[in-house]
Each structure stands twice: as C-alpha cells, then as structure tokens.
C-alpha cells in the first residue's frame, strides 16, 4: 500500500506567542517549532499499516525551510521518503488554497491512502483531509479511531459525539483524517535517525505548482482573546495561595 501522510510544523505548545504589530501573524523569530501533535498519530498509523501490509510511506509537509525538520523526524520514525512543498508565507493561504497546493503537489504520486491529522494546532481549521479528498476525487472519512483493511477497501471506526461511534466502509484509494489517541506514536530510535540521513526529501516550490493563490477568506487580525469572566487572581507563596483559594472556595463561592 502506498501511503502519503501529511505532517505540519507548528509553534511548540509551550512557545510564548506574541503577535506582530497590526495582528497579521505571530512573531516567529524567537520561538521553537514542532510537528503538529495530531499529525504524529496519522504518521504512526501509516507506519503500522505499512508494517502490516507492506508498501511505502511518504511524509509530506508544506511550509518554510524549517518545515524540513518535521519531515526529517518522520523519516527517522520510519517514513521512506519526504516531499517538502516550500513556501515561506504559506500561513497566509486559506484552507482551500492550501489544499489545492497540496493536491497539485502529490497528484502524480497516486497514493492508495492519504492520512492527515484531525487538525493543526495553529490555524485549527481541520479541513485539509476532507478538502484533499474532494480535490482528488476520492472518498474520505474523518475522526478515525481504527482502520481494518478488507479486500479492496477499508473498514473504519469513526468517532461521533457524546460517546457514540460508527463503523463505515470505503473503497480505496481514499483519504482519512485520524483522531488523536488512536495509537501511541513511537519515538525515533538512534538507528532510525541515522538511517533518515540517507533518505530522500524532494523539494517543490509551491509557486511552481501553478495553483492560484486566490483565497476565499482572509484573516484580518489576530489578538489576545477578551475575557468573558472576571477572574480573581490569587497570588503569594504556595502555602498562602492554597489557604486563600480554599477559604474562597469554602466561604465565598460556597462550593466546598
């Protein structure tokens, strides 16, 4: 099975975010980046499918030069090769323009299966998998908690809301977006890291794909959210804080 898995590089979870003047984007210079956590579950699922059914896993990422690091990490975990769609300003693209670029860059690969994480921890649109399926003319399923290969298709466990699940079947080739928690992503081994150095990463300039940048939406401004509640902050030494907080919960809020 030939599997393409999309991995995105996003600001690290504990990176202190500051917003550029005018609110166009965050300041990227002084923060660290990491692989989008939901995508690590998609990668793990791709590697497990390959181990079970043979084939190839290709890790694909779009982003500036630094996004190569995310591809390298995927290669170190066991992906066979990488495709880097290079664009320093791809954060400006809306979800549809992004997906059009991704689809154009991988169309010729003819993957049997494409996997994405559920959503990115930066924009958080959660649309890429569904859009890719539409643009490539393939069926899709989202929020996947289990994958079984049956004949020429897949049997999938979808998570619905409020504790409900559903089994669905779809034919291959297909696109899936994977729910976080489906598996336990592996760590790269030293051997894997060494082996990754010999693996190929093809770089494609996004602008060379001939995809229109025309966006259907535009982020006018990013800002720190306004508070909906007045929070009383309790300060002091840990012991003082503990005493004050418990006093307030007991006698002010009366919830203890």
């Amino acid at each position, binding site marked *: 099975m030939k599997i393409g898995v999309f991995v995105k590089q996003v600001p690290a979870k504990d990176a202190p975010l500051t917003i550029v003047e005018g609110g166009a984007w965050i300041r990227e210079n002084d923060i660290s980046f990491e692989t989008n956590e939901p995508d690590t579950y998609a990668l793990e699922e791709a590697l497990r499918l390959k181990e079970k059914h043979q084939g190839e896993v290709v890790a694909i990422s779009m982003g500036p030069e630094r996004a190569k690091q995310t591809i390298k990490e995927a290669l170190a975990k066991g992906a066979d090769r990488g495709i880097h769609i290079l664009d320093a300003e791809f954060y400006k693209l809306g979800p*549809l323009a992004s997906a059009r670029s991704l689809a154009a860059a991988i169309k010729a690969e003819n993957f049997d299966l494409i996997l994405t994480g559920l959503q990115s921890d930066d924009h958080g649109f959660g649309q890429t998998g*569904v859009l890719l399926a539409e643009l490539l003319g393939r069926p899709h399923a989202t929020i996947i908690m289990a994958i079984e290969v049956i004949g020429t298709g897949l049997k999938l466990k979808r998570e619905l809301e409020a504790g409900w699940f559903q089994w669905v079947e779809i034919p291959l080739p297909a696109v899936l977006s994977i729910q*976080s928690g489906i598996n336990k992503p592996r760590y790269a081994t030293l051997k894997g890291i060494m082996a990754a150095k010999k693996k190929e990463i093809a770089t494609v300039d996004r602008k060379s794909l001939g995809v229109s940048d025309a966006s259907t939406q535009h982020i006018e401004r990013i800002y720190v959210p306004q508070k909906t*509640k007045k929070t009383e902050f309790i300060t002091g030494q840990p012991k003082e804080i503990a005493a004050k907080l418990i006093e307030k919960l007991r006698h002010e809020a009366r*919830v203890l």
Partner: protein
Amino acid sequence: MKILLITEQRERKWNHVSFETLAAAQQIVQQTKGSLSAVVIGKGVAGLTDELAGFQLDEALLVEHDLLDKYTPDGFSIALRQVIESAKPDLVLLPHTYQVRDFAPKLAASMGKGMIGDCVGYRYENNKLIFVRQMFQGRTSADVVFTGEGPWIASFQAGSFRADIAAKNASGKAAVKPVSVELKAEQIRTKPLELFREAKQAVDLTQAPVLVSVGRGIKAPENIALAEKLAKLMGGEVSASRPICDEGWLPMDRQIGSSGQTVAPKLYLALGISGAIQHVVGMKAARTIAAINKDANAPIFEVADYGVVGDLFEIVPAMIEELEKK
C-alpha cells in the same frame, strides 16, 4: 443578507447545537435586514421540519431522499449543493458538529467556495460580517472575513450562542417547502454501518459535585495520584483533558470536552489545563471554575472565577495540607 441554515438530526432526533446556530442566524438576519431559510435533511423528517417552522424564519426546507436516511459525506454534499444552488443564499450557516466537519468543507469546495469553520462568534460592523474564531488552541482569537463572491459557508462551535434565545415564529408558523434532490446510489462511496457506544462507562462524571481535572501540565502519569488525593479530600472525582486520555494516563470515560463528557459541577478545578475550546465547551457551565496554570496567558483563565498563575506541584500539595488540617 439571505441566510440558509442547515440543521442536524440523527435518527430523527435533533442535534441541539442546531438551535444555537439558529439563534445566531436570526440575529444576523435582523442586523442585515435579510431573510432566513432553514433546512432539515434526512428521511422521515417532516415532523422535525414542522417543529422548525415554529421558529422565526421565512421558510423551512424539507430535503428528503431514501439515500439520505443514513448520513454519508457524498450523499449530504451532493444533495445540499443542489439545495444551495436553487436557494442562492449569501451565507450558509451550520453548527460545528463532527458531522459538519466531515462534509461541509467538501460541500464548499465542490462549489469552489471556502468555509470559515469553528467560529465562536461574529461582529457586524460597517456593513461587514466578521467571523471570530480561535487559533493556536485558544491562545489567540482571529477576525476572519470572506473574500470574493458567495455563497459563503461558516459554522459555529457549540456553546457560542444560547439555543434558548432562538425566537419563535411571530405569525405562528413559517411555510414548509419540500425540495427534491437527485441522488443515485452509485454516487455514494461510503457504506455506513452500525452506530454503537463503547462498554458502559465506569464513572458518571456528570453526577460529581467537584471535579479536579488534569491537563498536560500534570507532566507524568504518576503525578495523577496528587490530583486524586485532592479530589478525594474535596469529595469529588478526577477528570482530564483529551491529551491525558490519548496518552492512556486516565481512561477515556474521564475525558471532559467536545469528544468526551459535558459537565456542570459545583466546582471545576483545572490543573495544568490550557483551555482549548474543545475542552472549555465541556466544562464552562460549572458553577465555579478555578484554574492553576504556569502560563498567565492560558485561555483557561478566560473562563475561570479564580486563577492561580504558578506551579501546580507546589500549590496542590499545599492545598492537600490545608484540607487535611480539619
């Protein structure tokens, strides 16, 4: 502005987030002096459409087909595209449910349009509709606008509007209009099978008066004992945000949020939980919310009544000591 609202039902039962989005749609219609049509899609849903027509809207559209009995992304996208192309709305609104996430981007792309999903609000300023959504896991908000021609497609997250403010129809009942759609079995590539629930849940968090909830800030599975001790002293239970259950540090039935349980305890104490929207929708109805987090900018403080910026590994043991005093 001409708005088309797409409601959601499963097995002829409403997804009630539909009525939150209805309230938002009514508000936008009022501000833009527009009109509102609302769609019920499925099979055997005439009763629901009739119920919907009792709300303040211009018409209720009944979209029925044998192939729409069970949800499939192909069936719903193909049918709704026909409805949109005949109704010609400026804006299509949907509740941001798991089902909408599954088909709405496809529906939009099939018409060459984009979707602004997962909005938590909107503003109407200078004749411009601005959608507000969260980014970076709730650490920032963003104002997003559509560019280019409609129809525009947007969805609102659960809890963004109050369903109980959706206005009833002033003149009794809106017109119910059946809309026929063409759909063939071979166009539907997904085969939906049975719906089911996992084994019975071991703990009913909705009944706990106090929840001590842990997030990534708890750092390691062995530290959960600290939260358990505090919960016991407070007469409550331990719960968690999604990443903790994904890691297997606590079972899935302890998870609070859009993919877990929705709770409204007397006290919700969040330990090391950043407060992404998917978590907050599950707990914001708590009577009192207290949060301890080392990051002063964590979005959990937006909903907290009491906040402590600090190290939970210093503060929680001190709280345990304080509670053990008596």
